[in-house]
């Protein structure tokens, strides 16, 4: 009798339970590569949900990884607030001029109506489309920007830091607006079929704010926000460091954390043991110039350091793989996980089985 194959959903749920599934699960967090698969420009690709559904399904089949990513682009939330999105030919769309230019703009800001905002409706339609295709076999990862990190795009990083340090009342007001939006947006994606929500929160990383500041700001915001989201969440630091605040992140109620390649994955994994599943931490920027051999070595090294005992999903460290990363490298990552990531892990993942 042939063995019953494990689905990606079962694999991911097992590792989230801090147990070892059949192999290390891996998420290739690909957004722009779907446009390549369909031979479309990035702007055209994101113009209809059908393109994204088809692109994600093709990427899933091609790379045999373990998730679908219903994320379009970060400034979709800025678009919802009335802001501009700038498309380029070879990278993720970027936010344009900040929507908040004055303090009065913060006071006048209103929460967008998720269901009736066309750019968000496209993401929800894509999520529903993906759900129709895979049902419960493959996790679908939805994305929200944390209320604490969204202002970087809403008003510019420098002016946001000024606000955080010098205008606590206005800062609190902005957090309330963003929080109401974030909860509504996350729950709409879950209702549309997302399995879990990735809560991007790089401003909470210790690269950007001190732990002391985080506990007063991003931590409180995360605790309040995540408690209102009707499904599992993973907090992603989008390349920022987080080792000193891993226990705090666990205390926000999140199930997993996306970590930086700037930190030792072994130390991160040890700090997260039985509390948080670790997602990471391949260097996406370097990845564009890796050889196939280098890709394999990075994957083997990562599995050797973080794979044991479950609680680990191999991924890039930023939450989005750059458009410039070639197919051969992505394929090499996939082949390497399939080869070296089978549990029980080879005693020497460095090559001597």
């Amino acid at each position, binding site marked *: 009798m042939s063995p019953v194959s494990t689905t990606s959903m079962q694999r991911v749920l097992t590792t989230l339970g801090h147990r070892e599934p059949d192999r290390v699960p891996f998420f290739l967090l690909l957004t722009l590569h779907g446009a390549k698969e369909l031979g479309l420009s990035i702007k055209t690709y994101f113009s209809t949900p059908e393109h994204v559904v088809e692109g994600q399904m093709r990427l899933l089949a091609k790379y045999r990884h373990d998730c679908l990513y219903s994320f379009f682009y970060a400034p979709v939330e800025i678009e919802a607030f009335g802001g501009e999105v700038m498309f380029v030919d070879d990278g993720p769309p970027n936010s344009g001029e900040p929507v908040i230019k004055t303090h009065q703009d913060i006071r006048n800001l209103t929460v967008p109506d998720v269901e009736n905002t066309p750019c968000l409706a496209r993401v929800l339609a894509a999520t529903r489309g993906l759900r129709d295709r895979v049902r419960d076999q493959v996790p679908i990862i939805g994305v929200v920007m944390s209320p604490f990190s969204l202002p970087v795009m809403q008003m*510019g*990083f*420098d002016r946001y830091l000024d606000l955080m340090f010098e205008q606590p009342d206005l800062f609190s007001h902005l957090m309330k607006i963003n929080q109401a939006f974030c909860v509504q947006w996350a729950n709409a994606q879950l209702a549309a079929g997302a399995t879990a929500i990735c809560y991007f929160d790089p401003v909470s990383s210790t*690269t950007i704010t*001190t732990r002391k500041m985080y506990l007063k700001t991003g931590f409180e915001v995360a605790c309040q926000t995540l408690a209102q989201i009707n499904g599992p969440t993973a907090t992603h630091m989008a390349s920022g460091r987080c080792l000193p605040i891993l226990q705090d992140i666990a205390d926000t109620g999140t199930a997993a954390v996306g970590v930086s*390649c700037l930190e030792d994955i072994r130390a991160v994994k040890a700090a997260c043991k039985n509390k948080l599943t670790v997602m990471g931490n391949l*260097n996406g*920027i*370097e990845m564009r*110039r890796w050889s196939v051999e280098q890709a394999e070595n990075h994957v083997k090294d990562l599995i050797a350091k973080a794979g044991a005992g479950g609680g680990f999903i191999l991924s890039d460290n930023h939450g989005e793989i750059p458009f410039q990363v070639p197919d051969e490298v992505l394929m090499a990552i996939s082949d390497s996980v399939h080869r070296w990531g089978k549990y029980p892990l080879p005693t020497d993942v460095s090559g001597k089985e």
Partner: protein
Amino acid sequence: MDDRDKMLNAFERALLDVDRLAARQVMEQRGRDMRPIRFVEKVVLPVLEQLGAGWQDGPLALSQVYMAGRICEELIDEMLPPADPSRKNQPRMAICILEDHHALGKVMVYAVLRSGGFDLLDYGVVGVDDLVARVQADRVKVLLISVLMLPSALKIKSVRQKLMDRECDVTLIVGGAPFRFDDQLWQAVGADVMCENASDVVPAIEKMMEEKR
């Protein structure tokens, strides 16, 4: 601990506490023998360099380094107004963000350079062709480019090529997240120098000035 060490410690503490008043007190207590430019060289820049290194290595946060730069810029602008003859004899410099609206890196470098007594043109957010035209028209000799996104970093290659086509002799200093995640990227795009943090910029420019002397 000698007086200068005490001054350095007090200034660093004030900046980390985002305490403008305490930072001003250190500046005002610097003594009659320490001219403003000397205070900048002996206290402000070493402290900013130390904070920058602290961020690069992990223990400090970007928000602390940013606020420190802002406080220093405010103080130094009072001590050394833009037209002050004590400001350095320097090459013509400009700073920009290439095709991106994330200004933090540029704001920090600008603050550190102004704190270091340098003057520079601020081009804000620019595209490749506009940047090249302005550099040529302004006869800029040192161009600082800040980027956040990888595609913007890769466009620096085109800036370099177009400057060469116009025979503009410009030292290209680059910085920003993509360069910190790939230590070969700055050379791949044809930059002359890569700075890992804002406070690396002043020593880099001083070294360049020394070599050209």
